[in-house]
């Protein structure tokens, strides 16, 4: 059974067709890369998969279960997590509070108005663990406002990992990072166990190509090429669309 299946998905904003008849089939444990020039509809595809946008037609299935009509807030509870291309964190709080919120989102405790959040030992422990995984354990108590851009990228990933997802959608995790930071994040992604299926959007070809097993090339909302890394790189349409010659 596929981890993630997208079937004949369409979405238009007015007359602009941003997603046209897209089919995807991601196997459990796979590392899938989605590439395409600016405006190809990559992030829109993510927003459709996570339910932040509703498709005009088509369907989405998670481990064989149709989730097309499932509200986006329910999907994390079914094992789907994402990171954002534009960093979307809680700016007034500490790093550990950010990760705790991610953990709390999946816990029934999130409705509790009576207990002290900072005294929930298992949440704090798990948050620390998630931060250690991304190498931020030593600055867990630091306010987010005092962190670097690269650290915030890692907080994003820590929040997604803390939710223990089965399918993790990474929207340009290397965007805006320095070469050193890129290497750190790359190592971090390589360390994610195989029971997590990864789907990643990335522009940065050198890191991304190394990471991916299968690649899907989007152009004007359509899947142009799909196949193994070697197949897609060798395909003349990839050169034409993506590399421009």
């Amino acid at each position: 059974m596929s981890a993630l299946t997208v079937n004949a998905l369409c979405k238009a904003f007015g007359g602009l067709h941003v997603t046209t008849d897209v089919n995807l089939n991601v196997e459990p444990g796979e590392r899938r890369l989605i590439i395409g020039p600016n405006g190809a509809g990559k992030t829109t595809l993510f927003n459709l998969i996570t339910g932040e946008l509703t498709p005009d037609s088509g369907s989405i299935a998670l481990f064989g279960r149709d989730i097309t009509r499932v509200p986006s807030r329910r999907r994390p509870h079914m094992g789907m997590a994402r990171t954002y291309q534009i960093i979307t964190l809680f700016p007034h709080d500490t790093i550990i509070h950010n990760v705790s919120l991610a953990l709390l989102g999946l816990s029934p405790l999130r409705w509790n108005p009576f207990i002290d959040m900072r005294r929930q030992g298992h949440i704090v422990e798990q948050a620390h663990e998630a931060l250690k995984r991304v190498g931020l354990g030593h600055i867990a108590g630091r306010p987010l406002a005092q962190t670097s851009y690269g650290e915030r990228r890692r907080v994003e990933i820590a929040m997604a990992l803390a939710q223990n997802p089965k399918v993790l959608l990474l929207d340009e995790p290397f965007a805006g990072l320095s070469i050193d930071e890129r290497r750190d994040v790359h190592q971090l992604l390589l360390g994610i166990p195989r029971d997590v299926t990864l789907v990643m959007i990335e522009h940065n070809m050198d890191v991304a190509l190394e990471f991916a097993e299968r690649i899907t090339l989007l152009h004007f909302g359509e899947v142009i090429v799909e196949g193994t890394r070697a197949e897609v790189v060798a395909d003349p349409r990839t050169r034409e669309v993506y590399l421009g010659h």
Partner: protein
Amino acid sequence: MSGRVVALALAGAALVTLPYWIQGSYYINVSSQILFYAIFALGLNVLAGYGGLVSLGHAGLLGIVAYAVAYTLQAGLGHTIAILAALVIGLASMAVYAVLSLRATGIGFIMITLALGEIIWGLAYRWISITNGDNGINVRTRPEPFDLSLASPIAFYYACLIVFLVSLAMVTVFVRSPLGAALMGTRDQPRRMNALGYHVWAIRFWACIFSGLLTAISGILFVYYNQFISPQALDLTSSAEVLLMVIAGGAGSLLGPAVGAALVVVVKSVVSGFIERWNMLLGAIFVVIVIFMPEGLVPGTVRLWRLAWRKASAHASHETEPAASEAEAKQ
């Protein structure tokens, strides 16, 4: 940290002993007003400060509760029933208010709540068979919990103080709870909260209900204090006034609303006795607050205090060992 505890203990002691060092029932009554307006502001702060949902119709909700008490008493029922009925009616009204206004956020939310507040005011003004219109309804007696009469200013002050401290404790617990953290999360990043598995609408709805509970509590004290309710208490000015209390004191801070309530009530009822143009004075004070402490009096004072403390300890470190000042800064 310890400085904060000392300051809070001093403030608590001052509130408890207030009738002994403030002479005259007039000033004790002003203190009672500050306390129930502070509860009102605490309620609005849950939404405006922690939830990022600015409501301009809260005086309408307070009015519904006050009318519920007055109407029930007028119908010949007892105080216990009147208070319980008012709480139920207040929470039910808040639920309707929330369902209607939570269709939007930001400016849209403000406009819907403004409209709802005005509708409630209009009803109070025109639905004469229930509200007695412009003439209002009198409340002849105050309740006597545990056979203690609340008729005297001092007794009523202590009743307000107890209810205020309980309300403050409720908000403190809420703000530190997971649901409180979730509410602040929906204020800062609603989209992210949704993607993390939170039901953003439901979190906001429960915040409205909690805000409604505090508003109802304040409304009950309000009507028993004045022993009278008329449409004037529900108008837009009243809604704006409590919002100004929250913003002046510090939206999203625990003690800000109480400080804001004290400021507005003192200027409105005490200073207005000496200065005819007290409205202008209040306006000038707000301008000064906005310029020097845009985050509000309480967070602003804390910020300036820390800055001064840091400067002082940095200055001291030139004379003593640097390690000592570092340890101080960490505290």
